[in-house]
């Protein structure tokens, strides 16, 4: 079967053309779901905090727009022009309710020692009840984090799912002249270099608790596998066999890493404890086996293998048994990323022009879709948000490699990096 964008498949099954493909997609995942209409009331704070309030409101606005959960309604569009920045009273809430707004959002910012406190509120308009009321504390330079936390509180309250607004993306950038490990917020803000190896860093990957990052570096010459502990600031050498030690993937428990090494003559997949002990070989094949990615259950591992000729995605049990092939479309499918929700495996697939795009297959093999559009460029290295609905990937469609995010249905593409460097190999944290 030829891969087609998901919205094309969907439109075959709905009589009415969908207004918004993302909405239909959402409904497909959780039937009956409608985006929740919310409106932001002017946030309260001292006059000299105007700039800070604007930042927080804008970040929250952007978070809500990017989420698959909320539909942001502008107060001016519903004739709601609040005269003050006080907490919304019953008449305002009532008016919003009549205009179809399900929840009104309002917050109050105040400085405190070494930082801020944001009193964040959400009022369900139907009953006028406050449904979210929380004090969020943050350091001086964590203004954006306050809004992200508010947004995640809202997502959790209204969907029962944790939001992704506080998540981070680690990636490789050659901005300093060498390929180093960087970290940025999920919206591309707060980019920060993390390593200073002055070498080549490859494939940084978040641990499930987002406290560690594994990566491969040529810092000692040989490409060895390392784990950075962000809390303690230490680096541990996990594997330093002659040849490649690369493409690591954390087990969902965070206790083990699957990775590929070429020490036995070609790339094979090994398991190792996160402290570097307990090596165990999982694949035994004269072909290259690499780029493992764990299923969220921890029971299976997807990986790339060219045992059938060109590289394809295979799945095996976590002990190496029961290997079966997932992808059959095209002659080059690599770098699988198993979604945190378990249902999809995204990967880089090659088109007829030998260029890569992001594809995704259902883990049970029943459906294959193209996530990004084909072109004279490469889209690769997909990595999932925790909600399993959004991905980040690398693309050189505008020249140098940059990092983009996109919804699984191919909509809402957004560029997250735009400096003159190459920014590659993103990994999205699960918290």
């Amino acid at each position: 079967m030829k891969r087609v964008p998901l919205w094309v498949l969907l439109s075959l099954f709905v009589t009415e053309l969908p207004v918004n493909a993302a909405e239909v997609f959402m409904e497909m995942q959780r039937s009956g779901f409608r985006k929740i209409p919310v409106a932001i009331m002017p946030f309260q704070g001292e006059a000299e905090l105007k700039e800070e309030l604007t930042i927080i409101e804008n970040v929250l606005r952007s978070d809500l727009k990017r989420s698959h959960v909320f539909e942001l309604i502008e107060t001016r569009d519903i004739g709601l022009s609040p005269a003050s920045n006080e907490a919304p009273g019953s008449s305002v809430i009532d008016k919003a309710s009549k205009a179809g707004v399900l929840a009104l959002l309002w917050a109050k910012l105040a400085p405190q020692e070494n930082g801020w406190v944001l009193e964040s509120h959400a009022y369900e308009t139907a009953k006028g009840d406050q449904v979210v009321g929380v004090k969020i504390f943050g350091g001086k330079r964590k203004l954006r984090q306050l809004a992200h936390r508010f947004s995640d509180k809202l997502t959790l309250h209204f969907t029962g799912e944790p939001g992704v607004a506080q998540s981070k993306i680690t990636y490789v950038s050659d901005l300093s002249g060498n390929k180093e490990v960087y970290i940025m917020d999920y919206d591309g803000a707060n980019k920060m270099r993390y390593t200073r190896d002055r070498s080549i860093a490859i494939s940084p990957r978040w641990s499930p608790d987002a406290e560690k990052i594994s990566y491969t570096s040529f810092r000692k010459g040989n490409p060895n596998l390392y784990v950075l502990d962000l809390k303690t600031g230490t680096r541990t050498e996990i594997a330093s066999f002659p040849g490649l030690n690369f493409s690591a993937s954390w087990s969902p428990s965070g206790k083990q890493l699957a990775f590929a090494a070429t020490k036995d003559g070609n790339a094979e997949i090994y398991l190792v404890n996160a402290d570097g002990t307990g090596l165990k070989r999982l694949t035994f094949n004269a072909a290259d086996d690499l780029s493992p990615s764990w299923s969220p259950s921890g029971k299976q591992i997807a990986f790339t293998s060219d045992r059938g000729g060109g590289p394809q995605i295979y799945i095996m049990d976590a002990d190496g048994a029961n290997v079966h092939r997932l992808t059959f479309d095209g002659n080059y499918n690599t770098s699988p990323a198993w979604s945190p929700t378990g249902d999809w495996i995204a990967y880089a697939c090659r088109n007829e022009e030998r260029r890569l795009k992001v594809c995704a297959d259902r883990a049970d093999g029943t459906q294959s879709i193209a996530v990004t559009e084909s072109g004279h460029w490469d889209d690769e290295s997909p990595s999932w948000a925790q909600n399993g609905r959004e991905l980040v990937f690398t693309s050189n469609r505008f020249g140098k490699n940059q990092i983009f995010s996109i919804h699984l249905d191919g909509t809402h593409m957004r560029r997250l990096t735009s400096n003159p460097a190459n920014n590659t190999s993103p990994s999205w944290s699960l918290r």
Partner: protein
Amino acid sequence: MFKGGSQFKMYAGSIGIILLAMVVVGCSKKVAPVTGSEGIAKDGTTSSSDLSAKGGSEGGMGSSSDDAMSSRDSGSGDSGSMKSDDGMSSMGGKSADSGMSMSEAAAKFASDVYFDFDMWTIRSDAKDALSENAKWLVENKDVMVQIEGHGDERGTSEYNLALGERRARSTMRYLANLGVSPSRISFISYGEEKNICNEKTEDCFQKNRRAHFVIKK
């Protein structure tokens, strides 16, 4: 920015035109030897080591705090370990003497060996050059050589690392079959990480799909 597929296609179209323009301009960079300027320690590539935790004591990644990321840039203490590669000389002249001068060696030694797309087999156009290399290496028994495997930008970076190593290994095997002791040859793959040509042209892609020789004294 990108609201949906149709707008996106417009972008795609204009990018295609830009790419075409780039093709016309072509790849202006000459093939230059890779000099390992990124600080490859000379003792790292061939030494074997156990798979063991080093206790995370390499230290100096920055002080621990819950605001850890803000203190990174000043925190690294391991810049001292970044030696320049004084033990490695890239082919292409300017190297110190060792019996026969390295520039002579460079003249005798072949330039890079090139590979077909997705392939790691030695092409017929590389065989004469590799025979010359082997002959020279047999005559100069004190020379150690490292073979770097490289790939073009197409393909995923991880798979290209594996592919680069296959190219280095098949080059090594070819030399070994011609009588060069494998103990004198080491190899390393850089995949698409150290490309010498950065245009999106077939010409450039070919220049990057190479095995590159580095003499180690």
